[in-house]
């Protein structure tokens, strides 16, 4: 059951990621990303991270991606045009990426953690547990993050505002 669910959502996830790359229209890419995020939420559930899974849906799928789609709609982003652009990305970047990926995967397959087996339904990381940790051990980081978000809000407002002079 577990392997079935993992394969189902994992393949959905991978398919979504690949589709994101293949699609020419940003809106399709965005939808693929939503699929990736949704299936990731379910994979989190498989891993027992209940609260994170829900938050993944609410924040990523429900807020961030809506924002993306909103912007795509606002700017009426049509089909991607093909420009020559950078040779570096093709000549160096893609081989480098593939090399790095292959190295990483081979290392993971050889030395990755194999021993720990998890079982479906073993839920931990409930809201209260995560909350306790967040407000004790990581309190400073949490407060700093709140400052970051505040600055981001102000930044976004300033950036997106039309200047009155023009």
């Amino acid at each position, binding site marked *: 059951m577990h392997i079935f669910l993992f394969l189902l959502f994992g393949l959905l996830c991978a398919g979504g990621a690949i589709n994101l*790359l293949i699609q020419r229209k*940003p809106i399709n890419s965005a939808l693929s990303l939503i699929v990736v995020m949704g299936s990731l939420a379910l994979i989190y559930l498989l891993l027992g991270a209940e609260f994170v899974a829900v938050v993944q849906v609410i924040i990523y799928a429900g807020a961030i991606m809506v924002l993306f789609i909103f912007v795509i709609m606002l700017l009426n982003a049509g089909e991607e045009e093909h420009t020559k652009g950078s040779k570096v990305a093709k000549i160096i970047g893609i081989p480098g990426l593939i090399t790095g990926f292959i190295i990483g995967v081979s290392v993971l397959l050889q030395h990755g953690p194999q021993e720990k087996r998890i079982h479906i339904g073993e839920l931990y990381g409930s809201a209260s547990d995560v909350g306790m940790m967040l407000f004790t051990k990581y309190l400073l980081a949490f407060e700093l*993050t709140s400052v970051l978000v505040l600055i981001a809000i102000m930044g976004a407002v300033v*950036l997106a505002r039309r200047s009155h002079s023009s």
Partner: protein
Amino acid sequence: MTIPISWYLLLSAFLFACGVMGFLIKRNIITIFMSIELMLNGVNLSFIAFATRFGTLDGHIFVFFVMVVAAAEAAVGLAIIISVYRTRETLNVDRVNLLKL
């Protein structure tokens, strides 16, 4: 039937690689931005997987922070994209190479 953690990590690596690839091959600035989110998600998955592997919740906390940062980044980034589009009238990163508005 259970599966080892390294499978999750492989998926995470794959998502991350897809994100990087998207950054390399996509022209639309919004799509590139989405590739970044994809990378972040890949990393999040590895966090959760390791949290499960070690039986601690710290990984979950990190995922929270990543999400918050991603949200902040999305807000600012999309605002930048909007203002770039206003001045340049394009979303193609290859045409936005002056490194200024």
